[in-house]
């Protein structure tokens, strides 16, 4: 009996020790997706990096896309540019734009790790390394390049193990990219939205416009668009088959914090004493009034004679907490260069080329809707797949139906990434018909947020449209452009307007 009791006792104490170690492990060492292969490679890579790879920038030209995109990534984001992209790095108020520099540095890092694993000295002319979808590189690209994944993540912190990986990978890329001049490193264990800020971001410091946050924009029976909240930008159109679609644009955020103050004055109550200045002297030196010496203030002790206090009703206090901004998109910003963006072929001709994808990835992403067909289909160059419908006739007749696809793509850009109160920001909206049939009754609606004030008569539209404004609940305006013509296949409309940041 005693033996069994002893056995149970020792088993229980072993369980205590095991759970204690687990407790320690759970608290100190975060459980996560620590990749042992990555850890080993990171130990190897930094030492070999500087010596083996002389010029990481030059290797990008020969490397095709080597990251398998995960299904959550939109088509524009997953693939780095195949063609070498001209890097633009300029000093605008000490800000450095990191576009292709960072991507090139990433590619360089991948090459180095592969080199470290294979222990080959010259990694510059190596063939495409095999990067599995589970490797951290593809995860990392999804993590910061892809706004869709970031939108899901919102502002929630990522488990710490992934933070460590991110931090270490950023460290490596920083060591590499310092050779090529990029300063995009973020070493923070906190949530990082890419090279934006190494300490993270506060969504309340951003002014956003675009998208459809509430996801509730729809058209009513009387042809009115409802569900457009503040900051929403949608386009509604009618296809040839008579279907009415509502397509939100992407979201554009501008860094524009604004501050206010709460003030309270405290006085002496009856029976107290206050010290107030009664008069003051400026001390005189031998030649002049010495303004560097503190003036001597003669203070008097005063007390209130009687107390007159207005007792305000406490019960009227209203807890009006501001709406917590939780699910905020990662800010998708455009460059400070509206002309460059206007010259992108996406904006001028409606074509999306590989070389411009990093500009768009830094800027705005055209929100495209993907619909899952019941048949497995392959999409080539953004053409919708053909559906094959079998007609079970005796002769074996096969009928091919081309889907009626009149589809609009709407892209929104801003010419400034950050703005002080009082500055003017120009927004650019581009709507393309990327479908297969013309669309009619196209109405673009932009509901401006409270702090954006539309500048009178600053809008231009490249096609004929009826422009209308109406006041919205936020104290700003709701702009709408009703195109007078149908948008045929391949046609587009470009709209520009200016807003002043309040």
């Amino acid at each position, binding site marked *: 009996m005693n033996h069994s009791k002893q056995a149970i006792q020792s088993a*229980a*104490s072993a*369980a*205590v020790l*095991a*759970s204690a170690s*687990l*407790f320690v*492990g*759970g*608290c100190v060492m975060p459980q996560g997706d620590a990749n042992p292969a990555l850890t080993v490679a990171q130990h190897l890579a930094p030492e070999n990096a500087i010596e083996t790879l002389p010029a990481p920038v030059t290797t990008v030209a020969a490397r095709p896309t080597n990251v398998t995109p995960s299904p959550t990534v939109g088509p524009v984001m997953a693939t780095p540019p195949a063609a070498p992209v001209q890097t*633009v790095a300029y000093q*605008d*108020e*000490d*800000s*450095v734009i990191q576009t292709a520099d960072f991507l090139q540095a990433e590619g360089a890092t991948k090459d180095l790790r592969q080199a470290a694993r294979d222990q080959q000295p010259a990694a510059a002319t190596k063939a495409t390394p095999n990067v599995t979808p589970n490797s951290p590189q593809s995860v990392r690209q999804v993590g910061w390049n892809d706004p869709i994944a970031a939108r899901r993540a919102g502002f929630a*912190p990522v488990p*710490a193990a992934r933070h460590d990986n991110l931090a270490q990978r950023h460290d490596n890329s920083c060591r590499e990219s310092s050779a090529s001049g990029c300063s995009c490193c973020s070493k923070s264990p*906190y949530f990082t939205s890419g090279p*934006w*800020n190494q300490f993270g971001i506060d969504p*309340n*410091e951003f002014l956003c416009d675009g998208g459809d946050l509430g996801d509730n924009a729809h058209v009513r029976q009387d042809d009115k668009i409802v569900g457009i909240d503040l900051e929403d930008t949608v386009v509604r159109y009618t296809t040839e088959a008579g279907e009415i679609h509502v397509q939100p644009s992407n979201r554009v955020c501008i860094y524009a*914090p*604004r501050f*206010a*103050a*709460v*003030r*309270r*004055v*405290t*006085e002496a109550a009856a029976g107290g004493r*206050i010290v*107030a*200045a009664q008069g*003051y002297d400026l001390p005189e030196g031998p030649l002049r009034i010495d303004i560097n010496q*503190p*003036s001597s*203030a003669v203070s008097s002790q*005063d007390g209130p004679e009687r107390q007159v206090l207005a007792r*305000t009703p406490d019960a009227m206090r209203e807890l*009006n907490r*501001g709406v*917590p901004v939780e699910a905020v998109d990662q800010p998708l910003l455009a460059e*400070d*260069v509206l*002309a*460059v963006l206007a010259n992108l072929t996406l904006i001028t001709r409606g074509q999306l080329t590989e070389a411009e994808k990093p500009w768009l990835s830094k800027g705005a992403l055209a929100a495209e809707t993907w619909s899952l067909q019941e048949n497995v289909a392959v999409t080539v160059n953004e053409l919708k797949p053909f559906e094959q419908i079998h007609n079970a006739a005796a002769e074996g007749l096969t009928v091919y139906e081309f889907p009626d696809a009149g589809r609009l793509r709407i892209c929104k850009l801003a010419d400034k990434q*950050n703005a*002080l*109160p*009082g500055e003017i920001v120009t927004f650019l909206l581009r709507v393309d018909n990327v479908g297969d049939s013309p669309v009619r009754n196209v109405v673009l609606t932009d509901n401006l*947020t*409270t*702090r954006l*004030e539309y500048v009178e008569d600053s809008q231009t539209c490249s096609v004929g449209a009826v422009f209308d404004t109406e006041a919205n609940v936020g*104290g700003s305006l709701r702009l709408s452009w009703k195109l007078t013509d149908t948008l045929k296949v391949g046609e587009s409309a470009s709209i520009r307007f200016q807003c002043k940041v*309040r």
Partner: protein
Amino acid sequence: MRKPYSLLWTSSIALGLLACGGERVSAQLPGSPPTGATHQLFRGDMPPGVVGGARLQRRGAVQNYYQPVRFSGPDGVRFALADGGVFQPNSEPQLHAGLLIGAVYRFKITGIPNEPGLELFPTVEIIDRTYPPPGQANRFPIPINIDRFDLQDASEGRMVTRVVYLEDPTTALPLPETLDTARSFDVSQQQDPLEVADQLGRPVAIIRIGSLTPPNEPSLLPRFFFGGPPWLLMTPARSAAVATPGEGAVTRTPHIPRTDDGTLEPQPMYRPSFGPQAPGPPQIASPYGPGYSTPTYQR
């Protein structure tokens, strides 16, 4: 012999540790703001340094960050910060400085209109930081705006507490503003300004303006200056909002081709020249097309 720990006690410790370990990992996500009656741990009338010190110990690393701050006031008012117990002689009407988070700084206000010789010594306590994009921190300072009612109340012996907060853009007032017009509103004596500011946004600084003057006893000076924390003098950044009309963003980024900025001069009219003329400005072939003149910086 009795065992020191009973079986039940040991197994309950094991279960408790297991549960605790599991909870700890899942408690990394932020919680929602509390609803209902709450007791605020920190109030606006706490001594300077308490709220800032609490901020240093929680909710993310803000140490060693010099938060840019911009002092501004009515016309003629000048601000000066102290360095080593001595106020800087060159006070400025708009003082740009970088102040540490959680530290309390004593500054001096002079040049108060209609009160020659009056000097006030308020304190500013930075309790949170902003997260500007890299390189833009100097352009987005926290505005410490003192208006003439504060100066008047302080000189009459009252104490003014101003809590500066970052506005929530979804509940912002639709009033146009600039950096100099940081709006403030009053709350009554029964209300706590820090709590009200927390409801409306994120409090970032607390300013306390009273009529305290520097002590004559030198041993009391460190306490008057709250330890004299370090600060950085910053120069105000150029911003498009204060740029002169002829100078636009194109002059700061000349290597980026622009065609629609509106600052291009019109093409000179063709004038046939007969006879000798003074040589005009050299016609430099511009990569950005004819008519584009090199930018001139005028300030």
